[in-house]
């Protein structure tokens, strides 16, 4: 097998002012507008979000297992210094992200007030991943009076920063629900954050945008209009924003498993010789921002779902150094496999390992859904990574690879604490890829397995679940 993951990038965008436009908060606020005060009181500053240990794991300043040695709750025990930059990317502040949204705005749906643009222009000009072309797209902003007119009929979303209205995000068609402001916000957020991830990837890989010849986008949003609600090709829009003039692409959709599916497809394209440098890119999910805000408020916690995630991966031919994808044993959850956890894990873990003569104990680390338990436990949603690892360990015990008494040891050694924001496709195993690739290049890890499950039933077209997995191995050189 001759395909590798040559480079990875992982970035976060801190967007406290976007919490009010997350799907759950927005619905609740429309019924109880007075809640907005409580929401505002529980929002974190950039410094707090950047000093939050799980966020530092995401961008690579800490490893996931480092969280085991830190005092909990993590939100009440910040790291000494907030760090914006990390080996895998950065945590972008909200005001600059508004600039990225405007740069991403190819169809004039975003208006930023003139003085706000003046305040962020310098920061954007000095960002290592922006250029003159971006500053032209940022423009000079609009006068306050024009902004008031944009917001006048209530169809546009007010964009705020630190409690002040600084812009508007407009709908694109008054009689098309697929183009209303709330939907376009989700899509533009995925585009702009995806572009941030892709630019970090290109820099880390040391390649130019022109070197990319295909892009697979792997978020869960749908790009289209009333006649083509999921038409797609956010991939091409992101590539255009990043100057990938020799590329086109398409969007891969498999619910949370999208990134794994996209990586497998990318590997197949490279293996077949159709493309050389395939970028897999997934921006953040605006809809999931603040999803569990009510539980956080109830427990007197800050609202932790205030960050968008972005991941990007470069898949290429074997370069003799980067970790290899075992294309001879991809795991898939077949339609006829059954939906029990046992059937899922057997299809996604046991079978692909057995196909190449391996057992569960031959994998150094498993990456599964890595949702931050500090976000999910207060809402009664459990500790997803821990539950998944317990199931895997139990499967190993059922298959007599380990004794029942060794289940917790398996979980600790081959699993990891969750740390990823609850952004759907982002925590679905792939957020660990940058860590695994680094460990393999440094010679401290031989083999990792990436498993993602997709909640296909949510779309009401099937009651089935879904999933895909792959094995990654250190390059023997």
């Amino acid at each position, binding site marked *: 097998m001759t395909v590798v993951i040559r480079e990875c990038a992982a970035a976060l965008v801190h967007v406290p002012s976007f919490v009010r436009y997350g799907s759950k908060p927005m619905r609740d606020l429309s019924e109880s507008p007075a809640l907005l005060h409580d929401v505002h009181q529980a929002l974190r500053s950039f410094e707090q979000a950047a000093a939050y240990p799980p966020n530092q794991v995401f961008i690579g300043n800490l490893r996931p297992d480092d969280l085991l040695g830190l005092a909990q709750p993590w939100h009440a025990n910040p790291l000494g210094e907030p760090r914006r930059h990390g080996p895998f990317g950065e945590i972008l502040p909200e005001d600059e992200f508004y600039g990225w949204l405007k740069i991403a705005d190819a169809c004039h749906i975003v208006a930023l007030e003139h003085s706000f643009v003046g305040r962020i222009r310098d920061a954007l000009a000095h960002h290592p991943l922006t250029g003159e072309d971006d500053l032209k797209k940022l423009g000079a902003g609009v006068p306050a009076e024009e902004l008031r007119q944009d917001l006048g009929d209530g169809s546009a979303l007010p964009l705020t920063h630190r409690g002040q209205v600084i812009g508007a995000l407009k709908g694109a068609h008054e009689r098309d629900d697929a183009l209303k402001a709330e939907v376009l916000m989700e899509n533009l957020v995925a585009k702009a954050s995806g572009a941030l991830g892709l630019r970090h990837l290109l820099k880390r890989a040391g390649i130019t945008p022109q070197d990319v010849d295909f892009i697979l986008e792997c978020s869960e949003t749908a790009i289209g209009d009333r006649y083509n609600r999921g038409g797609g090709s956010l991939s091409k829009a992101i590539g255009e924003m990043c100057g990938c003039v020799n590329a086109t692409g398409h969007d891969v959709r498999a619910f949370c498993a999208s990134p794994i599916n996209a990586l497998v497809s990318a590997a197949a394209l490279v293996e077949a010789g159709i493309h050389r440098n395939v970028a897999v890119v997934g921006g953040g999910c605006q809809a999931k921002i603040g999803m569990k805000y*009510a539980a956080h408020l*109830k427990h007197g916690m800050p609202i932790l779902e205030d960050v968008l995630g972005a991941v990007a991966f470069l898949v290429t031919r074997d370069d003799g150094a980067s970790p290899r994808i075992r294309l001879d044993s991809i795991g898939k959850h077949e339609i006829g496999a*059954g939906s*029990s*956890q*046992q*059937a899922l*894990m057997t299809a996604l873990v046991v079978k692909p390992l057995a196909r190449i003569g391996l057992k569960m104990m031959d994998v150094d680390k498993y990456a599964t859904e890595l949702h931050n338990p500090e976000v999910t*436990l207060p809402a*009664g*949603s*459990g*500790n997803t990574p821990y*539950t998944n690892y*317990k*199931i895997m*360990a*139990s*499967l190993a*015990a*059922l298959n007599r690879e380990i004794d*029942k008494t060794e*289940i917790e040891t398996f979980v600790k050694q081959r699993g990891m604490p969750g740390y990823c924001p609850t952004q759907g496709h982002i925590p679905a195993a792939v957020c660990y890829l940058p860590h695994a690739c680094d460990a393999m290049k440094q010679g401290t890890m031989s083999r990792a397995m990436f498993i993602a499950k997709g909640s296909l039933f949510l779309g009401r077209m099937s009651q089935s679940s879904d999933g895909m997995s792959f094995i990654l191995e250190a390059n023997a050189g």
Partner: protein
Amino acid sequence: MDPASQAHIKKIAESDGLPKDQIIVLLGASDIEGAEISAETVTFGDPSYTGPLAGVPLGLPVYHILEPALRPFIPEDVYDANLGIWTMAADTEEIGRRFQAIREKVANG
């Protein structure tokens, strides 16, 4: 428990002609604390006060599928295929104790 499920259970429990002793609620949440919240929802009312069962004590008998007491009612091959893994991954004895305690609390008013 999500509002839609609460509404569904409330509708069944309050439908005419369906005797209360013909209904049980069977839960399957892997997270024991989450399962307990769901159990309280269908017995004493939604403790989070966010759904239709807020303040509505249905008093329904509630069980968890992993309780050891239920195992004899399920064919062994079906149990092994669908739940076998959970007998190792979850503390089924503890789940049984907690749900029995909830049923006793309901019975004692």
